[in-house]
């Protein structure tokens, strides 16, 4: 086998691999991309119950409670304009507080967002980026909505 043929084989194999990887990535994107919406955006978008999405905002004051089973937490997520009811079964993250920024991932079932995962911000200096942007978009980030 000459060096040239060998290189061609390798390049061909490489391209084949790249092609299959691209196909894999594209099909995976089709099904597995999780889109993020703020409560206000949810109003205008009609999202089916099959679609996994992320929502984010602040945990509304005095909205946190528990269902009768004792392990399902309910609360509302707000961008200070609109809010969405959320149910989450399991232990909430350590930093989950009323008024804190959070992100929840899950599906809508009968108008309630059934979260399978809830992420809270980590410390005083860090707000999930999506939440910050959502607040900014709803015009609430800067108090009077100057931008």
């Amino acid at each position, binding site marked *: *086998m*000459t*060096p040239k043929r*060998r290189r061609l*084989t*390798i390049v061909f*194999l*490489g391209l084949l*691999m*790249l092609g*299959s*990887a691209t196909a*894999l*990535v594209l*099909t*995976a*994107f089709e*099904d*597995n*991309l*999780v*889109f*993020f919406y703020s409560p206000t955006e949810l109003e205008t978008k009609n999202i089916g119950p099959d679609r996994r999405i*992320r929502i984010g905002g602040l945990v509304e004051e005095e909205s946190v409670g*528990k269902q009768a*089973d*004792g*392990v399902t*937490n309910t609360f509302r997520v707000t961008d200070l304009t609109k809010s969405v009811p959320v149910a989450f*079964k*399991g*232990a*909430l993250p*350590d*930093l*989950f507080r009323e008024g804190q920024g959070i992100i929840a*991932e899950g599906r809508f079932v009968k108008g309630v967002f059934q979260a399978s995962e809830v*992420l809270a911000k*980590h*410390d*005083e*200096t*860090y707000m*999930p*980026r*999506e939440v910050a*942007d959502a607040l900014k978009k709803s015009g609430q980030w800067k108090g009077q909505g100057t931008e």
Partner: protein
Amino acid sequence: MIAELGHFALIAALFVALAQAVVPMVGANRRDLALMDFGRYAASAQFLCIAIAFAALTHAYIISDFSVANVFQNSHSKQPLLYKISGVWGNHEGSMLFWVLILALFGFAVAAFGNNLPASLRARALSVQAMIGFGFLVFILLTSNPFERLDPAPLDGRELNPLLQDPGLAFHPPMLYLGYVGFSMAFSFAIAALLEGRVDPAWARWVRPWTLAAWTALTGGIVLGSWWAYYELGWGGWWFWDPVENASFMPWLAGTALLHSAIVVEKRDSLKSWTILLAILTFALSLMGTFLVRSGVLTSVHAFAVDPERGLFILGLMILAVGGSLALFAMRAPVLKSGGLFRPISREGGLVLNNLLLSTACATVFIGTLYPLFLDATTGQKVSVGPPFYNATFVPLMIPLLVLLGVGPLLAWKRADILQALTRLWAAAVLTAIVCLFIWSGDDGKSVGAVVGFGIAAWIVGGVLTEYAERIRLFRISIGASLRRATGLSGSSYGMMLAHLGLAAFITGAVGDTFWGVEAVANARPGDKITLGPYDITFDKMSREPGPNYEAEFATMTVTRDGEPVTRLRPERRIYPVQRMPTTEAAIHTTLARDLYVSVGEGNQADGWAVHAWINPLVPWMWIGALMMVCGGLVSLSDRRLRVGAPKRISGAAPQPVGGD
């Protein structure tokens, strides 16, 4: 005063690095030995300066000198000594200082031990190493000075982030950085080789141990981080495909490929330009690992330094380093003479396939990590890419790679007979079939994934053992002669076997946890009982205890199985008053077969506590497997032939070319 001394030493290091970047390079071009030799002294001096700076900062942390802003931000007088020290690198400024310290340490190692290297190659490599160091030192001094003072000095510090106050995370960043920076050696030598226009087996022999050391450290670092996430975050999981995790995983994948392709350069004098490219890419990904975490471009549960200005600086640095070296690659790589020929089916061919699969896998992780950023920047649409994406892309690429892993080491160099190799693997095939049948019949869920996963692990074990039996000619010569052959085998052979077996153990754990995990969530008060699979967990009581710098709340739980006591678990919640931050400390009972994992959420006597419990089958094998991989790296490093400057061993014990990969 000592902090000022440290600052001064850092400035001195900057100038030394500048000289080290320029003088040896000029010397190498002019073939002036004296100028080339200057690089060695400069590298030692640079290391000394940075070591002084690092010692000064560590000193400030140990004596709790809160007049230093960095200490004030990240330490507290009541913090245990271990976390005072780990606080040095548990923050942005300190970790950057640590980064250049390791960089300089590696430069120093080249200067001290590289006596058998061609003078011009060493001079150029040292110069490249110093260029990187120079860039980072400018970065530290301009944007992230760890020695900034506060006046008046605060009474006490703001404390290290409580999540970082943990033995696993104390050593996770240094290991990770040791790996990242370790790949700078392969990079510097790749650039030097491009400048020289020559890559030969001697070059690979020098680069390989450094790559191996970096790979070992990076493996250890990633696993420590994963282990930490497992027991500290209290979510029962160990890998989340979080962008920050991916940032360290990508250099690992590329580095693993580099490790294997460097073997081909060393043994067969082939695949040169590809190996050079991999060395550049691996370091580029290491830089990106630093960049992604530091810039705040990605926000994730791990990011602890978020600052766009610094990010921009690192980005510039990266474009300069990577863009420059890729341009150099485009110009110089075509000049490299290609060496030994091989057929597609051969050890080389197998390693090429290994490299292609690993780099493609790396590319899918890359896309998954960066695509959300891309979409946000172009359309403003926010998306996240989670585990399902990686299960659909990364895993399918790993399966052929792992199957190949069983066969590859049995292929001969240059040209091999695939049928013959497969015939020799009959025992491994039988083992795999038995394991698959056993799993299928025992698995109530009948998941194909579990069968495939365990089958692959069995196949790898079978392949490794077959290859070992072949090497020592087991049953073909007398047992005594086989034993003599076994003791005569090189460290790198044993290292390879250990690492591959470790991978099989790791797969076992990961597959077991993925397919057979059981969990239970309950709201419980003392006296309540929770059923988890075959176990009964009784919540006995809740008690309080103060820690050194936190308040702890313990739940005591008795675990029984069919009425027989199994263990007593004490999951814990801590409140760190200085940072006003709660953390969860899960309680884990480990046996070789499973982890019993319990964490307690917030609660009180009236409403009860949220208790989350898991059975994580076979998870301990993941940690054992990872440890085996690290040990494999270390054993391989202990091989005399890899030790730089060691005389060649004269031995008749290994007549066939012993390939350690």
